[in-house]
């Protein structure tokens, strides 16, 4: 087994302490939570850093799932397993449970976190697509205070986010509106793998008409891809197979997949189309089942 290069280890005792450590240690310091993205990269010597700041002790500050009337707030240190098992979260946003089922494996999910996943900013990252689909916003804290950014603002490129040196993602906020449901569809080469392509969809309906719809894709662009054109096309229309097909075409048109070992660009576009349709269809079916 491969092993990391040498580094210094610090353990943060609070969010404030973590920020202070980052400021003191500079750009060669990285935070580590679950570590199941960072440590494998360090073992393969793809990531080499001088300081590792362990924030696993910050569960009391950063590990929570709070349901409020108009939003759900999830602490950045919330583990994948907790997101999977939360019935409250599944009731409001079934897309989370759909996605968590196909992220990594149960043992890895015991350690990996929401914040770690978003901050790694892998183009194929599933929770990024989920958060984009749900129009989440990210709370970033530094020594000079907090700011809240949209998902579009959060991602700046592959493996690049708006969290700058000396800052930490603390929370993800997801707006709650009545009459909505969601779903996630993923195709991968083997269980727990990164997606070849995946699609999240969220649909809100009133009186048989779609009032809003959002789709977020993973693995078909430099970061998660949201498709505003789909939202525009679906608003005000009743759901139908034709509408899903139209949304699927828009998804294929508005993504930028590359050919790599996971598949050809053509295949990924095909998946973007098909999976968008399935995710929309399932969201609507869930809404209808609930009698919304």
């Amino acid at each position, binding site marked *: *087994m*491969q*092993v*990391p*290069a*040498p*580094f*210094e*280890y610090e*353990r943060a005792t609070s969010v404030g302490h973590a920020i202070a450590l980052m400021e003191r240690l500079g750009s060669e310091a990285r935070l*580590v939570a679950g*570590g*199941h993205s960072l*440590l*494998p990269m*360090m*073992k*393969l010597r793809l990531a080499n850093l001088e300081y*590792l700041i*362990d924030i*696993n002790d910050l569960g009391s500050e950063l590990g929570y799932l709070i349901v409020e009337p108009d939003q759900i707030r999830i602490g950045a240190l919330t583990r994948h397993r907790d997101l999977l098992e939360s019935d409250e979260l599944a009731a409001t946003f079934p897309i989370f449970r759909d996605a968590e089922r196909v992220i*990594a*494996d*149960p*043992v*890895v999910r*015991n*350690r990996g976190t929401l914040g770690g996943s978003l901050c790694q900013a892998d183009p194929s990252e599933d929770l990024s697509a989920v958060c984009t689909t749900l129009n989440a916003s990210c709370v970033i804290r530094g020594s000079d205070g907090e700011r809240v950014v949209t998902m579009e603002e959060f991602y700046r490129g592959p493996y690049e986010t708006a969290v700058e040196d000396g800052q930490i993602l603390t929370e993800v906020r997801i707006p709650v509106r009545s009459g909505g449901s969601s779903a996630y569809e993923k195709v991968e080469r083997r*269980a*727990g793998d990164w997606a070849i392509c995946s699609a999240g969809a969220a649909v809100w309906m009133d009186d048989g008409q779609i009032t809003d719809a959002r789709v977020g894709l993973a693995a078909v662009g430099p970061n998660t891809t949201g498709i505003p054109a789909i939202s525009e096309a679906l608003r005000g229309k009743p759901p139908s197979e034709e509408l899903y097909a139209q949304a699927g075409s828009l998804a294929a048109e508005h993504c930028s997949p590359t050919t790599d070992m996971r598949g050809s660009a053509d295949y990924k576009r095909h998946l973007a189309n098909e999976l968008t349709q399935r995710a929309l269809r399932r969201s609507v079916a869930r809404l209808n089942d609930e009698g919304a």
Partner: protein
Amino acid sequence: MQVTLTVNGEEVTAEIEARLLLVHFLRDHLRLTGTHWGCDTSNCGTCVVWLDGEPVKSCTVLTAMASGHEVRTVEDLESDGELDPVQQGFVQCHGLQCGFCTPGMMMTARALLDRNPSPTEDDIREAISGQICRCTGYSTIVRSVQWAAAHESDRDSAVAAGSTP
């Protein structure tokens, strides 16, 4: 740097490099070689141990991260010379051939049964889905865990009745 952690109920203090992976600490420093390693990418699960009661891949945990916490390895499954029902199940149902993935499988199975005493076959397969076996084809592993689930209540009632199983 110095670390102090509890391993199989005993407190251990050691001077280590920060980068020392938990799996190597357990195997090379504490000579608990029941935990194995088999990949470079946190896929295979031969390194699974418990950290604060939950299965984790010890190849992807720094010893430093485990400092102040509790670790449990396969060596702790046996109690007072008696095999855990999970261990018995693997023997009875031939849940192993080369034995290399077995400690990790058993640690995950033990955690599963602690949370869910009557798992379905799907529950068991889902629980071990992060671990690889190249010998058995998994069906005997599943059966071993089912055996353990079925016989745990035997052991519990025997203990309750004051008799040795």
